[in-house]
């Protein structure tokens, strides 16, 4: 198990370096000139050269990239933001907790509601309850998030006046951002759990479990649920990485000072180091989530672990072959001859 995790973590190093290279290239080749932006409309060539030198932008591309990657890898230095005099890391770390809290709460909601609803829907297949759940989840999964958020504001904030429309001042204020941010995932997870569960409960081992005389609760929770959660975990894990990275739309609509908002501001101000830094941080989240998913996977499914036990053949063992031969010889068929002769 530990070997598996170490192997998996070592694999993250080349992936992370690859991410850094790609992200850096993207931001380098983005249109617009940060030096010009900073100087405004009137400047001399000397001013321009001096500022470009100060920002390190007059160096060759490869040197800039190497310098950036070296800084990130050795000191986790994401550079200084153009738009303020803080470092990128300071700006991001001020915003991470909010996005993290909204993302984790949302994921919790997805797990606590999505999986049970999906299981319920599968067990009640082709009933009114199932149809209702399926219809709602298809609608929810296909509604654009921003529209849903705006509708929620109109209904719950403007008309009913139950909840505040922006900020995170009180407990109530958290409800709408968390719910709208995770509603789409909730719908997809419900649907995924349902279809996965439906597939599993038709498997032969479910019949075996029933034939043992197990009560239906045990059949469902011990045998069916665990097997059907495998694809669901992948989905939740993948979405968690992105959700935690902050939702641009939700945070903008509800005016929440999280990563998503920071991203929008950074892009508007053409603050390249900041955009770069946020992208790097989000990609780290995604990688860590994938690592967690893989670990959870291998805890649930023994087949995954044994893929990593290299060089060990699992299938043929000694006592497999040495079972005593059949008395009287001949396969199934030989008795027929005897019977016909009789």
């Amino acid at each position: 198990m530990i070997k598996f995790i170490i192997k998996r973590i070592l694999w993250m190093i080349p992936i992370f370096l690859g991410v850094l290279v790609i992200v850096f290239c993207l931001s380098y080749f983005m249109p617009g000139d940060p030096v010009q932006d900073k100087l405004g409309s009137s400047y001399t060539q000397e001013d321009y050269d001096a500022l470009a030198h100060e920002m390190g932008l007059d160096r060759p591309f490869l040197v800039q990239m190497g310098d950036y990657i070296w800084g990130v890898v050795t000191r986790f230095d994401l550079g200084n933001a153009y738009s303020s005099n803080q470092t990128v890391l300071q700006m991001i770390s001020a915003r991470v907790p909010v996005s993290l809290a909204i993302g984790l709460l949302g994921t919790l909601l997805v797990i606590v509601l999505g999986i049970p609803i999906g299981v319920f829907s599968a067990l009640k297949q082709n009933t009114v309850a199932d149809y209702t759940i399926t219809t709602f989840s298809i609608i929810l999964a296909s509604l654009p998030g921003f529209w849903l958020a705006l509708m929620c504001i109109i209904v719950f904030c403007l008309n009913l006046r139950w909840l505040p429309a922006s900020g995170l001042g009180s407990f109530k204020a958290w409800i709408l951002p968390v719910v709208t941010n995770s509603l789409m995932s909730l719908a997809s997870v419900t649907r995924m759990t349902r279809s996965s569960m439906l597939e599993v409960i038709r498997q032969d081992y479910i019949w075996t479990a029933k034939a043992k005389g197990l009560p239906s609760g045990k059949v469902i929770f011990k045998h069916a649920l665990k097997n059907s959660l495998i694809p669901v975990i992948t989905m939740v894990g993948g979405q968690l990485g992105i959700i935690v990275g902050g939702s641009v739309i939700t945070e903008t609509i509800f005016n929440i000072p999280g990563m998503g908002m920071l991203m929008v501001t950074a892009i508007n101000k053409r603050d390249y180091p900041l955009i770069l830094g946020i992208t790097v941080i989000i990609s780290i989240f995604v990688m860590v989530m994938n690592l967690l998913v893989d670990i959870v996977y291998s805890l649930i499914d023994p087949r995954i672990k044994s893929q990593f036990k290299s060089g060990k053949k699992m299938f043929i063992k000694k006592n497999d072959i040495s079972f005593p031969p059949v008395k009287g010889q001949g396969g199934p068929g030989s008795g027929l001859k005897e019977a016909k002769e009789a």
Partner: protein
Amino acid sequence: MNLLEVKDLTIVYDTSEGTVHAVNGVSFEINNGETLGIVGETGAGKTTTARSLMRLLPEPQGIIKEGSITFDGKDVRNMSEKELRHMRGFDISMIFQDPMTALNPLLTVEDQIAESIREHTKLSKHESVIEARKMLEKVGIMAERGSEYPHQFSGGMQQRVVIAIALTCNPKLLIADEPTSALDVTIQAQVLKMIADLQQESGTAMILITHDLGVVAETCDKVAIMYAGEIVEYGKAEDVYGRILHPYTQGLFDSLPSLDKNVRRLKPIKGLMPDPTDLPKGCKFCPRCEFASEKCKETEPPLKELTPGHFVRCLRYEKESGVS
């Protein structure tokens, strides 16, 4: 009293494409320790019959429409969910066709055996695992391998685990649904021999579902030949093998390769089984039967007891004096 008595069992599947008449008026009985072989081609209703004995038909499509199943004096059709649970795995257990899919991939094999023990006895978790390991040794698997997972076993070994699960509570009746079809030919005989040995050791009665008439000859006391949801011939194995009555049974024998005759080609039964949603009116086998007459198309032949204990469903024996 018979251990199991099935009378006029009729089972249908309600599907969107219509009603599938899977089993039509099947009757048979089994005594303690006896072995009944049910033979027939795919789709003849063998598995449906077997599953209905434990009330393990797919819900809500599979419906037992008519007939009675009496096990050990109790009416299986009217059992409560609790009684059924007690019966499944304890009084009657089942070996499924494909061992690769019949075991849960996420649980260790000893856990899958012990689970059944715990359900039916008051043993603790630890004790049940010890029992499970003893059972593994009985089926020829080293006890230490109990903590391994199904994917670490070969197909034949997996089937042994399935057998261990089925026999661990010493059931009175074992239903083996084509236990060797999914296995390599080289180990089919081993596995069958093992089932037969364990069965004899514990005095369990068995229903063996198979395509293989040879296997039936070797292991079964009674044979039921099924075709399109009906039993077309039924009797003691030596009677049926001694005097083959029904044309379908004859067809099954003819389609077997034989070592002592110089036959270049096998003789298959021509045609296909009738569509179970739309069965013919008269004899179900008549479209494929070489002896079929006009009357066969119209009249459904009754199951007739020709000699004591040997039944056949064919109009050719209508005039013969049977056992009345």
